[in-house]
């Protein structure tokens, strides 16, 4: 039995321990937002957060997340309560086919959590593991910057010390 936090809920699962987390989340917990693209850690479609860091879950055995906190795109935000990056994604019409975008958003949100003002080079490095076959890279970069700005200005405007803390 493997226990972990999935989008802040405690869950447990009894599957072959070498099963990649991606398939456990998609087919056992039926959260379909995270995608399968390559199965080799090469494309980033399956990206989730493990204890806040972006990880490729198609090669991550579920046994390795015992006790960890996992966040998927469903935990990042919802259509009614968007994460600022998702808001920027919608405003800038980032997605084309959309298949890579959950992974892109998870990589981008992990970046902003540790680096609220990323340079172009920081963005290139953080997003290097995410392929977009439709070629939305220019828009992704634009939206990451817009999202970062929205987060930073919201933080400054409210002067809520807890918000500052969670953003940093």
């Amino acid at each position: 039995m493997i226990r972990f936090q999935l989008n802040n809920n405690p869950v447990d699962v009894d599957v072959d321990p070498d099963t990649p987390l991606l398939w456990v989340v998609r087919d056992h917990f039926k959260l379909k937002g995270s995608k399968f693209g390559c199965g080799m850690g090469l494309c980033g479609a399956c990206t989730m957060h493990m204890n806040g860091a972006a990880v490729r879950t198609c090669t991550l055995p579920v046994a390795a997340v015992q006790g960890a906190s996992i966040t998927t795109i469903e935990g990042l935000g919802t259509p009614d309560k968007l994460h600022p990056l998702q808001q920027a994604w919608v405003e800038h019409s980032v997605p084309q086919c959309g298949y890579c975008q959950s992974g892109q958003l998870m990589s981008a949100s992990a970046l902003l959590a540790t680096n609220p003002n990323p340079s172009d080079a920081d963005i290139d490095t953080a997003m290097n593991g995410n392929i977009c076959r439709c070629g939305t890279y220019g828009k992704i970069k634009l939206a990451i910057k817009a999202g970062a700005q929205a987060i930073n200005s919201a933080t400054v405007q409210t002067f809520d010390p807890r918000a500052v803390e969670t953003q940093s």
Partner: protein
Amino acid sequence: MNKVSLTRRKFLLSTGIAATGLIVGCSVTRANEIGYSTVAGAFEPNSFIQITSDSEVIFYLPNNEMGQGILDGLTTLIAEELRVEPGAIDVRHAQRHEDYTNPEMGMQATGGSNAVRGQFLPLRQAAANAAAAVRNAAAQQLNVAADKIVLVNGMVDVDGKRYPYGQFASLAATLPVPENATLRSAEQFDQIGRERPRLDALAKSTGTALFGIDAEVDDLLRAVVVRSPVIGASLISFDATEARKQSGVVAVLEIRNGVAVVAESYWQARKAAALVDIQWSKTELSSWSSDTLYEKFVETLNDTSQKGLECCNEGEGGSLLENSAIVAVADYYAPYLAHATMEPMNCTVQIDGDRCAIYVGTQSVQVSAGAAVYYGDFDADKVAMHPAFLGGGFGRRVIGDDVAEAVVIAKQTGRNIQVVWSREDDMTADFYRPAALVRMQAGVSEQGVIETWAVRRVGPNTMNYVLDEWVDALAPDFLNKRFVNWLSKFPHSLFNRFVADPSSGDGIYTDYDTANKAVYHVTQDPGLRTGFWRSVGNSSNAFFKESFIDELAHRVGMDEVQFRLANMQKNPRLKKATELAAAKANWGQPLPAGHFHGLATHSSFGSAVAQIAEVSIENNTIVVHRVTAAIDCGMVVNPGIVRDQVEGGIIYGLTAALYGEVTLRDGVVQETNFHTYPMLRMAQAPTVDVHIVDSQEHPEGVGEPGLPPIAPAVANAIFKATGQRLRTLPLKLS
């Protein structure tokens, strides 16, 4: 009764499956709720639109959304004429029905960048008729003259008093629907041409958009298929003893193209599949490797006793070539390519006795449904289609081979089945962009007039493999199976021996004013199946044509922009696009040290595109900094989507230009995943500026035309940077 209501009645009959509880339309903009083809009390003027008594406006999207923005584009056409906000329309994927036939293709399919072009008038007419019907019903119900009524934002407005459309739905349903209501004029457009976020962005930014792979039904088993490493080889024998012992494995069975391993979970099926030991037959393809094939192409190119099939022969053909002051000859090569859609192929089948429901992302609901009928032996009216978003199509998802496997496994096991292809499966069992070796020849006057244009092309064709699959999937509607089997062998002999496959010559001779042209194609096909790959023949032919044109400009000693403009007097759209791109890129002005501009221009799918690539060479690596593109695609429905499609086409084409190559060893495709078939990533992606030529002409294609010019634009810049003329794709510096 008018034609529309007759068809409508047929439609209701054929989707009688709704009564059994199977889903017939899936809402795509509203969190993927499930919808039905009929809503009590709704006004249903045609197969595209429903207005419910709650004022819900539902639009059944006849084309498939694969990233190209057609959901947005076609919904905008409806919104424009129906006078509702696009975002207020509930868009659902259309079922399989002849009313959703693509007007240009004659089948229910999405491809050829023709959806907006083909639907621009029919869908607006359907919506305008519906709007007129609402107006008539409102006039009657409110007892006012119809001309006192203004339709605004989903409301009937009479002297400032507003009533939602739904109040008139039930009366409208009883009145005749006008057939030729007046369409809004271009000056009146307030939705068409408007820049706003695309409608599917929210679902696709929150993980709530459903793709084929996300289908989930009760008691769903997962299947993995082990296919022959040499595509088309047949199974001689297999040993699944070990595979059957693995945890979760439910069944291992032989299907028409391999062995299917069915298990409780994907991972169990995938692991067990690796343990199946299979003996495969040898085929003709097994005897080919990329180097031997290339040698054969060269031999055939040089063997002029093989004249080939005529793609074009105008004026004196190639016979006057030697009369020109400047005669240029150069050979070019482009390799096989895989599609590598981001979502690997997959299909889910729910089976219930003699009925089935198919969940799949497809470019042709008709082909997919036909594949279920033909391979699963279902009656056509017992197959319910649940089309989903496509995680990329690019021409790969028009075939139906995904459905064929899944229905056979579901039928044989009697269980609900999802077949998921691995990336390796997807890349090694594709329908590839055909390779081609060409000899370009031109005669040019000293003043720079192209007098003769002669091309000899060697390689496989495209249509034969696709038609082969389509015949199986499309014919069973009206033909018996033995005849279909016989017919499906036909496309090969047709395109390889008798008539030139139009896709082989696509775009290689059409852009420039040359009095004498000859293009011949000699079929040389090792048997690796081929298919439509974003922009089809244009994807390689534009590289050949535009690199060679550049060679001619340099030979004549003319500026590349001026040489092209001088030779495209009869091509005003391409001329405009070229002038616009040159102006926006500051062509001819100084660039940063070590940076060079390369130009390419190409028309395809009705649109004209010019691109200028700014390139430098760093550590012997090609770096593309910026691409300035101009497109004339006629009238624009959503400018943001046009720009995104051109940019997307550039990135897709640049990936191919810099890295793309599918190779064979003993008939086996060697590229298996993104480490051996690399993709352009963010750090390598150039800044792309797209400029749209202002036009009031009928809209043309945008999904594909952005791709063809990029490879030659980059190659032409490399020539200026290094003096190396790279005539082989992918582009590699020596």
